[in-house]
Structures are given as C-alpha cells and as structure tokens.
C-alpha cells in the first residue's frame, strides 16, 4: 500500500481491501517511526486525521467517493487549515492556530482527502534546503546527511520516504520542483493563477503558486484536479473553465517538440546531472519526440531579478507579523517601537531578516527605479524569451537543479551559493509559466536527479502527458530510498 499510485489506492479503498482509517493509521505509524530521523512534519494530529478518515470511509460506504476520498495528504505548513497549528516554519507563528481553511485545503477536504499532518519547510518558504525552519532541518530520505531541498522539503521528504501517499507544497522560485528533484519524486507548479493563493501564507505574492507533490505524473494530475479552480477570494485567481488534467495522459508523444535551452547546460551544472538529463532526453526521442536546440538569452538575469522582486514583496507581506494581534510577541519591551523591534528580531530567523532587509532596501526612495523597476523590466524580457521559444517548441526541458542534494549545513552560511540552486527554476515563476520536475536517474552518491519540464501557459495537461509517457517507459519514479522502503 505504500508504493502504489493514487488510482490504485482509490481502487483498494473502493473494493474495501483497506479502509481510510487503516490507510491513515498505516501512514501515521510510519511517520511515528521514521520522522524522528527526517523531521518532515511540524504537526501531527492523530485524532483530527482519523476523524477525517472515518468520515471518508462513510462517504466510500455510501458510494459517494471521489478520486481522492480517503487518501491521506501531507500539507505544507504554509497552508492555513482550520483548527491546525499553522506555523509557516517560523517561531513568529509557533502559536498560530488557523481559524480558517485555505482554498486548497477546503478543496482537498471537499474531495474527501485526509490531512495527514503539516509538513516542515524553510521559514516563510525562504530557502532551498529546508534548513531554516524553527523546528530544525529536514533530512533527505536518500541520505539523511543531506538536505531534501526546499522550501517544500518536508512535503517532498514525506512522499519520498512513503510517509504520505501525496503532499501539497508551494513554489515561489522552485520550492516544489527543486525538493521534488532532490528527493526523487514529482512535483508541479501550475500556471500562476490556476491554484488560489487564499489561505496560503504569502511570501512573494506575484510568484507564489501552490501545487501537488507525488510519486508519479498521474497522481499529480489527480491532485491538481482537486486543487485547481477559480476562487473569488483571490483577485489573481483565473476564472477559466475547469479542466481534467488526466485527460491527455495516454496520448502518444510522436511529434512532440522539446526545446532544450543551451543556457541550461553551461558552467555550474554538475556532470552527473547533465548525464542523467541527456539520457532522459534520449529516452524522449525514442518516444517520438523531437529535440530542438533553443536559446533563452535572458536566463542569466533571472536569479538577480528574482532576488530583487521576491524580497521586495516579502518585506511588505511580512510586515503584518508585528507582535500586536497574533503570533510571537517579545516577553519584554519598553514601548511600541521596542515591541516591534524585539518581537521581529526574536520571531524571525536570519534568512527571513536578510530578505526583509534586501526587500526594504530595493523599495526605498532613491533605489526603487534602479532595483525594483529594473527587475520588473527584466521580468518582462524573461517572459518574452519564453514566448519566442514556444514558437519553436511545445515543452522546454533541462535540469531542475544544478547538482544532486548537498550536505546539511554545506550552503547554510553562503546565501549566494544557496540562491544559485534556483538558477533553472525561478524563470518559470517570473514568467508565470507552469513547470514540473520528475525523477530521471541518479547522480553523485546515488542521489536522485530531476528533469525539469517547463510548459507554455495552461499546458499542464500536456506536461503531465509527457511525464506520464516517460514514466510508462522508465521506472525512476518507482525507486524509493532503501532505508525507508
């Protein structure tokens, strides 16, 4: 039951081979056994989860099951869930119990899914290693001496270690895709606006997008079916007709044009990763796809532009954590300004403070034009690169991250090295494009490598089709870390 797809799980539940309560208990027991090593969860609430599982069993018994009914899903601690502690990986919100459900959580509940627990993450989703959480670093199930990637590292590790059949995460600059790659599983960040941000604690509003993390493309499609859709409470949510993301899974890939940007294979890319990507591209050619050399000339500007825009928005988004209404308040202070300073100094970690400072700086009087406005112009150039590229190809492929998972602590004190881990992923956020990572082999130390697939706007179904066909021809997505199998 741990290595099956969501479709197979749904069948097992429908045929009463297992109940949702049993399935939930099975996973909770794994969490209890494995998580002390991996630290993938911040909150587990057995009673709450089992109550949901019981309700799901009742739905199944009544013949009212939907595809996710009774399936336990791990939820990144950035999503507000009513009655659940929702910390966003920060001491600032260590005591915050959400009084409401995020849109996505509401959708999962409505689909009959069971919230298995809230997963660990980089504080306020700021990081690429899941080391900055107030609850300590998450470990990679393939090698606990290494990081799982971030910021959705808890969700990725939970799925990779088979503690959860599926999980949800958020992606601001690669936070779903990079941990999926480093943990050898699948994750997709949809087109900006497809998944409502309501109740998803904001990091950088114009870049944040929620999405699923799972073992295979078909599972991602089923999860996205439940998560996507218009929400009037999010002004950036797109009001489009609903779609079935599983509809194109079985289409053949003959004639698919895959653009391979030369900029994604330059200096900085590990040879092990490059080799695995090369093999994957060859596999796609075997499946009938055509490989087209393309160029995204402004790629090199995406990390600098991202590290202006994301901190700028974050510096403003995080102003609400002031110790006045909820969350952390310093135990002692002399006046109002002291209350602010101490609460924020004690409540936020170093990386969050660094980004608030950068963001405050780039928005200040006299610097705004040189940084923020310039970065917005670059953002448009980057988006135009993709528009041009998609005149020549249907999907773009390359590596998700420049290397396999690095050691815990290795980059923790070198923010620039850490930021460069996002070099291939941030462009999709800047352009608002859908992008995913699927496992495509192993590199140094037997660590997984992820294949990055960037689609055109609203081409999620086509991307999932390409991934699913690849996964029918290969078995990388079925590999699980041995210690936790």
């Amino acid at each position: 039951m741990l290595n099956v797809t969501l479709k197979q799980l749904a069948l097992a539940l429908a045929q009463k081979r297992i109940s949702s309560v049993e399935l939930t208990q099975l996973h909770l027991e794994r969490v209890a056994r494995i998580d002390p090593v991996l630290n993938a969860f911040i909150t587990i609430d057995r009673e709450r989860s089992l109550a949901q599982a019981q309700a799901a069993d009742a739905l199944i018994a009544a013949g009212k099951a939907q595809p996710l009914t009774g399936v336990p899903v791990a939820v990144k601690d950035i999503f507000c869930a009513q009655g659940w502690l929702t910390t966003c990986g920060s001491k600032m919100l260590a005591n915050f119990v959400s009084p409401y459900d995020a849109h996505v959580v509401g959708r999962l509940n409505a689909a009959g899914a069971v919230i298995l627990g809230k997963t660990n993450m980089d504080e306020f989703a700021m990081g690429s290693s899941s080391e900055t959480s107030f609850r300590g670093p998450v470990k990679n199930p393939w090698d606990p001496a290494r990081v799982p990637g971030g910021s959705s590292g808890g969700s990725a590790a939970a799925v990779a270690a088979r503690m959860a059949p599926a999980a949800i995460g958020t992606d601001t600059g690669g936070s779903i895709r990079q941990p999926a790659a480093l943990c050898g599983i699948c994750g997709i960040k949809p087109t900006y606006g497809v998944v409502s941000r309501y109740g998803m604690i904001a990091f950088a509003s114009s870049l944040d997008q929620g999405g699923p993390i799972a073992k295979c493309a078909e599972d991602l499609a089923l999860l996205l079916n439940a998560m996507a859709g218009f929400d009037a409470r999010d002004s950036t949510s797109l009001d489009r007709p609903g779609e079935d993301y599983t509809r194109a899974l079985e289409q053949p890939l003959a004639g698919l044009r895959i653009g391979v940007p030369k900029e994604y294979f330059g200096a900085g890319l590990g040879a092990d990763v490059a080799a695995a990507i090369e093999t994957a591209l060859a596999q796609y050619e075997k499946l009938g796809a055509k490989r087209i050399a393309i160029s995204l000339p402004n790629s090199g500007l995406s990390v600098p532009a991202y590290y202006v825009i994301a901190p700028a928005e974050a510096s403003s988004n995080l102003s609400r954590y002031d110790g006045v209404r909820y969350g952390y308040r310093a135990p002692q202070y002399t006046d109002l300004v002291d209350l602010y300073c101490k609460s924020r100094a004690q409540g936020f970690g170093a990386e969050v403070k660094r980004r608030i400072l950068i963001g405050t700086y780039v928005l200040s009087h006299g610097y705004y034009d040189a940084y923020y406005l310039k970065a917005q112009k670059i953002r448009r150039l980057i988006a135009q690169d993709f528009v041009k590229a998609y005149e020549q190809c249907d999907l773009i492929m390359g590596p998700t991250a420049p290397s396999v998972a690095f050691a815990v602590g290795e980059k923790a004190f070198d923010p620039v090295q850490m930021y460069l881990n996002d070099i291939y992923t941030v462009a999709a956020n800047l352009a608002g494009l859908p992008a995913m990572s699927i496992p495509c082999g192993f590199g140094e130390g037997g660590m997984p490598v992820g294949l990055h697939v960037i689609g055109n706007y609203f081409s999620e179904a086509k991307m999932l089709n390409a991934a699913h066909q690849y996964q029918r021809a290969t078995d990388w997505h079925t590999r699980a870390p041995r210690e936790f199998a």
Partner: protein
Amino acid sequence: MNAKREVQWETVIGLETHAQLSTVSKIFSGAATQFGAAPNVQACAVDIALPGVLPVLNQAAVEKALRFGLAVGGPDVINRRSVFARKNYFYPDLPKGYQISQYELPIVAGGSVKIQTQEGEKIVRLTRAHLEEDAGKSLHEDFHGMSGIDLNRAGTPLLEIVSEPDMCSSEEAVAYAKALHALVRWIGICDGNMQEGSFRCDANVSVRRPGAPLGTRREIKNLNSFRFLQQAIEYEVRWQIETLEDGGSIEQATVLFDPDTGQTRMMRTKEDAHDYRYFPDPDLLPLEVSAAWIDRIRRDLPELPQAKRERYVRDYQLSDYDAGVLTASREVADFYEQLIGALGGGYKLASSWIAGELFGALRRAGMEISQSPISSAQLAGLLQQIQQNAINGKQAKEVFDAMWAGEGEAATIIAAKGLSQISDAGELEQVIDDVLAANARSVEEYRAGKDKAFNALVGQAMKATKGKGNPAQINEILKKKLAR
C-alpha cells in the same frame, strides 16, 4: 492680521480631503462599515490581516469614485486603468503593516470644483482623487497605561481628493470644502458626517511675497469641521507671516490643530518623514474601467448642483442667491422640485416659503429638511390656498405653524380655525365705509399729506375683518374712496 500685511503677503492653500464612501461593506473585505459598533466586531480575517488572507476590491467603492470623477470632470478625467499600491509603515492600527492606496495611477486625474467667493465665482482645480482604505483606531484612554486597538474602521473605503493650491484665503478654503462636501453628498457617495470622520480635510498652507515663487508649505492634518479648517488656516498663516517677518524660515512639516488653544503644533518635520516604499500591490490586478461601465454610471448620475442652479435662474427666474440656497443640498432641491411640481409653477412663491418659513422653523428646531414635519405635498396645499387668494399672508403663517405642530392639511386647518379670507368687494366696501366714518381724523391727516395715516386706516380695516380681509383689496378700495 492687519491690512498692511495682507497686501505684503499672499497665502496659497491646497486641500487634501478624505471622503468616506458610503458602501455597505469595506473596500477589500465583506465586513460591514457601519459606524458605532462595539470595538472589533466589524473586523473580519482580512481586516485583521491574518496570515494568508487576500484583498478583493469592492466594485461599489469603484462606482462611487467614478461618480465623483464624472461629476468633477466627466469621462476625460477618469483613468481607464488605475493601480493599487502599498504604502508601507508600521502602526498598531494598520494591521497589514501597509495601507492599500493608489499612488502613481489614481482612478481620477483632474477635474474642478466651482466655488462662490466674495469676488464672485472661482474655479478650484483638482489634481487627483484616489481610492484607498482607512486604518483602524488606536484608543489611548481607559487602558491603564496600555493602548486599545479598534479595527472596525480598518478597510473602510475612502476617496482622497487632492486640490491644486488654488485657494488664497481661509474663506476660499472653507468655500471649497463646503462645495466639495455638498457635492459628495449630492451624488450620494459620502454621508458627509464630519463628527463621525466621514469627511475630513488636510490643509497645505504656505505664504509668499506677491510674484515670488511658492513658499515652503506646512500641512495641517485631520480638520473635521469647517470652523476648525478656517481657524487653523488663519492661525497658520499668521504664524508663518510672523515667523518670516521676524527673520525666521519655514521648515516643511506636518502640524496638528488644537481646537482648545486655536493653535497649530508640530507633529513631524520632513526629516522624520516616512519612506513609504510604495510599490504596486501584487495581490490586486490593475483596475480597468470600461467605457460601458463609465456610461452606465453617467446615466445614473443626478443633475449636478451647478447645472441645477443655472437652470433655476434661467427657467424659473430665481435670483442667483435663491437658486444657490435651493441647491445647497440635494434634499432641499428635491423638496423644491416636488413643491413646484405639485403647484404646477409658483417658482418664486415656493422658493421664498422654503428659504423663509420652512428654513426658519427647521433652524429653530435644529432639524435637517429630511426631518421636516411638513412634507412638500402639505406645503403645496398651503401655497395653493395663497395662490387662490383663499387666505392672506398672515393667515398662511398661522396655518404653517399649525401644520408644523401636526394639525393636518391646509384645508383642514383653515376650516378648523375659520381663517378664510374676505375677498368679497361689497363686504369689504361696507367695512371700509364704517372705518372711514369712525376715523375722520385719520382721513383728514391723510388728505393733509400724512401717508402714515393711510396705514392706520388699513390696520383698522384689517382689525374690523378680524384679520380676514384681503389686504391688497383693502388697499385698493381705500385709495379709491379717499381719492374722491
């Protein structure tokens, strides 16, 4: 301020006015905007800025801003695309740590307001009007050394209306503020309640020598009555002139007016001004306004006070002053139009009764016209009796008083009090003959050239008819008989 100084110095004033838009719910959340609720009961998750919540723009607030734009400048001053920005600063009654406002691209850019001054009509140009959310309220009393926060007001929609520095005296500033106040109420976008803070002004004031470049301005914050606006500007102008004449200089600053002392005092200087780090709010898309939407709002817009006023002068032959009085508020104009509608004319009669008896009674009772115990239909009934000569002016006032006291319709009151006017020529001639016979001395005096004696005779005739005689007819008959 002495006359000499007035010649030597010019005052330059611009106003920033916050008009609270009268929507049912807040500008970015569904919480109610009603005034006076218990603290924090009208603050929802969005208003208290819980983690993860997002703003959604209230279309009703946009429509009210569009009404304003159309009223002050027509479709040309409306930006078809405007942008919400975040104004970042920390304060306990600002839950998000930023205020959502419009910065570089406001919804209204331009327009003007006509004001009446002693020198005649003047046009005050508007720079812009933009949508924004109000903050909450900090309560510093009754908390034993701590402060309370009430977020009921947080997120209330405001239209900030910024004028050009086109006013040159406190009188003009007040005239502008009053005209704006009347306008926003007229077009139904703001209740104008100044005590509750629904309409408040900041005044930017500077002085200069005639012909010199603009002086350094100081901004007086949060003036919530016309009287305070006038007093604050007058004090500030005097202070600035004295400072400059004493060899000092004016530093750009924000000041507060203290109504108790009648003085302004420093709040902050330019040096400690905030860097608000404005940037477009990524949670809200740019606001796009279609031509069709503007058209629909325009069709719903009532006739504006200025147009009405001109029409009253042109079509009803009212004086400009009277037309101004009747168009001071939409309620008064509506009352007037209902009245002349019921009368089928009587423009001047209706005007003088509203401005005279009705306003007098309302003022004595401390009431607005909307609270008047006499409806326009009732008053029309009374004026019809006057038009038909059924009662005279003095009787009409008596009927009015009875009507005010709730004694019913004009006809009922006239019957009950037996007030009908004597307009029968034969009956009046008989009365006058008796008066002339009984007052031979007055007759002699009149014939000797004493005009006053005539009035005495009229008075006697009115007395003889117990006040019911038609005064015009009595005059006429008396003149005729005395001329013989």
